[in-house]
Each structure stands twice: as C-alpha cells, then as structure tokens.
C-alpha cells in the first residue's frame, strides 16, 4: 500500500452556526480518480474549497505527502501542485486557445531589458498539447469561444496538467455537457490519471463516476459514509447513499426505478 498523496483527517468547517463539514476523512492517491459524490448542499463545494486553500478548516488536519499542510491562500495550493478546474470559470471565450492556455503562466523571451510574450513557443506547445488530447484546432489563435463545452473542459484540464498539477480537482466537469462531450471529458480524465496525476472528480452523476472512478466517497449533510473501492460497490448503493437511503427508495418504487 503506497502512501496517499493527500490525507484529509476529520475535517470540520463551520460558517458561524452552520456546520458545513462535520468530520470528513478522505485519502487521495496519485494515479487514481477519486470520485466525490453528493447531492446539492452535501458540502462538496466547501470540501474542495478547503482542499484548494480557499477555506481554512475549523478542525482536522490535511497531510500532503505525509507532511502537515497549511495554505494561506489558493496561490499556495497552486504552487504545491493542487489545481482546480471550475465548471464555468476557467476559460475566456474572446481570447485565443494559446493565450488562454498560458494565461497567468506566459512564457517570455528576453530582448535586451524587455521581456516579450513568446508567442511562437506558446503556439507550438498549445498545438502539441491539444493534439495529445485529441482536439482539432484550426490554429492556436482560434478563440476559445468557438470550442464546445467539453473541449473547453479538456483544454482547462490539459493546461492544469501541463503546468505541473499533481492533484487535479474537477468541479462538476460533466454537469452541463451532452453525451458525446461527456465521454470526451471522461476519456481526458482517464488519460490524465495514467500520467500519474491524482484526480478528484466531483459529480452528482453516478454513471459518470462509475465510468472512470477508482474510489468513491459519498458526502451527505457534511459527513462521509466512508470510501469504497471500485468493484466493492454498485451504482444503486451509491445512489441510495447520496440521497440518504430511505426517501429515494420509496421514491424509486413509485417512479419505477428510473432515477
């Protein structure tokens, strides 16, 4: 058993009188896709914000490669290799793919005392990376606005990995996508995982989770029901846990198990 890349132990997060997380423990391993499932309001957002350095946990500890980890702000987390890909807030539609890809990490070439944006390098790297991910671009200067939602997610993922992400947090990357685009994003997750990156895949869609997940953790009302490995759990069990069991079972019988 290899050591987990990140261990989160009994994380609690309170916002005033509201307890958003009431003791959550999760281990995240390199080269694995860890699916974090939960219904709306289960604490998924608070959990990833804690992991990515936006929130400080009220209680509990986070170990990164066995060492205690304290992030003052999200930039620290990014520097440590924890990258978050947000559902909508990742790409700028009016800018070219190449400019988006290197946004915040622009390569520069020095000419005398002046540093210039190295467009040649940026364009070349962008085309290579897009080709690896199977996205056909008209050119590196094509605007991101012309890409589909799935392609934008893929560009965002490729960008995070290219800039050294070791833990990739994907916040509902498939929730707004069509079937074909979802398949593309899931394939991208698989590629990234094989490169040794730890993927934290947040979703409320059990089928998407089952398609790529190695481990599954269900969050419900700020608590976890433990973590199951692939093959130890069925989609139905996951679905039940997400909804809190009982109610959905009754609902399901009345709807003819289509939920």
């Amino acid at each position, binding site marked *: 058993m290899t050591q987990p890349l990140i261990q989160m132990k009994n994380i609690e997060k309170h916002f005033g009188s509201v307890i958003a997380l009431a003791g959550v423990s999760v281990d995240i391993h390199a080269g694995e896709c860890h699916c974090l499932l939960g219904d709306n309001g289960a604490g998924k957002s608070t959990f990833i914000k804690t992991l990515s350095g936006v929130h400080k946990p009220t209680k509990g500890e986070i170990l990164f490669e066995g060492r205690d980890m304290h992030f003052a702000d999200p*930039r620290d987390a*990014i520097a440590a290799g924890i990258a*978050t890909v*947000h559902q909508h*807030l*990742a*790409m*700028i*539609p*009016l*800018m070219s793919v190449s*400019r988006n890809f*290197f*946004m*915040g*990490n*622009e390569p*520069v070439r020095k000419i005398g005392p*002046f*540093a*210039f*944006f190295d*467009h040649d390098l940026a364009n070349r790297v962008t085309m290579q990376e897009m*080709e*690896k991910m*199977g996205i*056909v671009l*008209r050119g590196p200067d094509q*605007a991101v*606005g*012309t890409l589909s939602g799935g392609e934008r997610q893929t560009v965002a993922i490729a960008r995070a990995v290219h800039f050294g992400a070791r833990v990739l947090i994907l916040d509902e990357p498939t929730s707004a996508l069509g079937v074909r685009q979802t398949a593309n994003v899931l394939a991208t997750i698989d590629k990234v995982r094989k490169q040794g990156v730890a993927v934290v895949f947040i979703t409320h869609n059990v089928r998407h989770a089952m398609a790529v997940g190695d481990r599954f953790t269900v969050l419900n009302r700020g608590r976890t029901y433990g973590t199951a490995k692939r093959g130890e759990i069925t989609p139905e069990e996951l679905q039940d846990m997400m909804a809190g069991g009982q109610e959905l079972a009754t609902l399901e019988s009345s709807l003819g198990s289509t939920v």
Partner: protein
Amino acid sequence: MSDTPQIVMDERVKQISPMRRAMIRPELGGIVGTIAVFVFFGLFAFDSGMFNSQGIMNWSVVSAQFMIIAVGACLLMIAGEFDLSVGSMIGFAGMMIAIFGVTLGWPMWVAILVTFALCIAIGALNGFIVVRTGLPSFIVTLAFLFILRGFTIFLPQVIERKTIIGGIREAAEGDWLAALFGGTIGKGFFTWMGEAGIIATFERGTRAGEPVVNGIPMLIVWALGLVVVGHVLLTRTRFGNWIFAAGGDTEAARNSGVPVNRVKITMFMFTAFCATVFAACQVMEFGSAGADRGLLKEFEAIIAVVIGGALLTGGYGSVIGAALGALIFGVVQQGLFFAGVESSLFRVFLGMILLFAVILNTYIRRIITGER
C-alpha cells in the same frame, strides 16, 4: 508513430477562407473607415489646402491629441473598465502645471513632474476604489469627472481670481522638460524641404524663406510613441495577456493566477498619465491653462476606441485600431472645415460613424467567438 491521434477534421467545422480570416480583426472597422475618410476628402477637399504641409499638420495635430487619450482609454477598456474623468483630468492637470509653475513660480520641470505624480496618484485612487468596492467604474469615474472639474474651476479663482492662468510659455522658456511637450523636432529637415520647394515657405515678412511648417510638434511624437508602446505592451508582453484576461472574465483570470486588481489599477494610472501628457502639450502650446479645457474629451476618447474595434464590455480590442479611430476623428473634424461644410454637421457625421463601427464590431465578434 501509430499511437499519435489521427487528426480528423470535424465535418461540421467549416473551412474559413484566408480572405475572411484576414478580415476578422479588431482593426477592420478602423482600416475601412480610414480609407473611406481619406477617399472622401481626397475627392471633395483636395484643392482646399487640406493636403499641403500646413493642412496635413492641422489635422495631424488634432488626430494626435485624440490618439494620446485614446491609447489610455483603449487599454483600460480592454481591461474591462471605463474612465469618464479623462476630460476633467486634462483640465485639472493643465491647471496644476500653471499653478505650480506660474503662480507658485516653481521651475517648470518640477511643476510638470509633480503634476504627473499627482494625476497618476488620482488615477490609482480611481482604480483602487473600483476594484475595492466592486462598483462600476462608470459611476466611480463619473464622480471624479465632477470632483476634478470642480477643483479646476475653484482653485484658480481662489488663488488668482480668474479661470485662465497665462504666462506658461514665458515660465517654461529654456526648460528641458517643458521642451519635451511644447517643442518641435526635425527643424533642419523641414527647412531643407522648404528650400527644395517641397513644402510652402513664407514669402514676405520677417520670416520670409522659412517653411510655414517648421517641424513636427512633440504632441505628434508623443502620440506615435504611446501608440507603439501601447500596441507592443498589449500584444507582445505577458502583461498584455493579463489586460485581455482581466477584461475578458475577471473570475477566470483570477483562477489562473492573474493579478487582476493590479492590472486594473495600473491601467487607470496609465489613462491618467495619457491625460496628463495631453494637458502638458496643450498648456505649452497655448501658453495658458483654462478651467474649461478637456471638456467632453472622455467621450471622444471612448468613441475613437470603439471605432477602433474595442468591445465596450472589455476583453477585446486593439491599440492600432484606436489610433486609426483617433485619426478618423481628427481628419473628419478638420476635413469638414476644409471642405467648407457647416461644422455642426461634424456631430451628425460622428454619430453615424460610431453607429456603423459598433454594428460592424458586433458582427466581427460573432464570427470570432462563433456566437449566433
């Protein structure tokens, strides 16, 4: 190489012809407009003296004035903000140079440097309030439009009991920094052109034999310099990428580690810098500072920028386009005078160009982003 993914063109992505591709650029409106304007006046005002040395200098100076403030407004608009206090800042900066340099009798270079520092600080304050409060820059800078204009009228009245302070040219005599704003360059070249008969010379009087236009005003040098610096900054540096990102989507830019607040505040400071350059050139040329200088300049700058292809919502635009917009502006304003057209029609013309430019820009943006 069997494991490289096969590049298959999506059958639903239409090939774009090179012609159409070359046309999809923010400067298109500016280029088309510039050609149209020159053809128009070439046909209707060619013999009016608009295209002899004096005429060219006439509209070049006016265009250069627009250009200086348009560069600042352009970069700020691409970064997603407006500055409506540009016009008031011009009046304020000119008045401060006059008060420091004439009324207080400071050396002119000290007066100019202190004014620059003061105005850039006010620009920074504008930016700071905008990024801290999250209020629209439209409102914040509208407040400064009134605050600065008020001070520009109030201060000279209290100090000198008048609204125009003169004597700047005398006070600036021989000053090294003032020459950077009020002087001309290329005197030898223009004298040579006059002697060679290429440009007109005075035929009588004390200056007989000297060329009518005896050099390029520093105003034009500043305008061209700012356009080049602005264009290189925007398209060829990482800071330029941050300007696009800050205006394109603030949250996405922040998530990628772009220091959005710093970028926006810097652009407010740069806009203030451009307004102060304008003011310094103006007071050196006129020899006086007036409380009503720079009125409506903020809108003229914004119009030039929009004609040049920038989006009012930020994230897209071009400094070259803004410069062309300023050129169109200057040529039309002076050209109507040369063509003998009633000058009030200038506003009608301006409104029509603006409308045409905005419609064209919207169309171009749709092609670029694939919106429908």
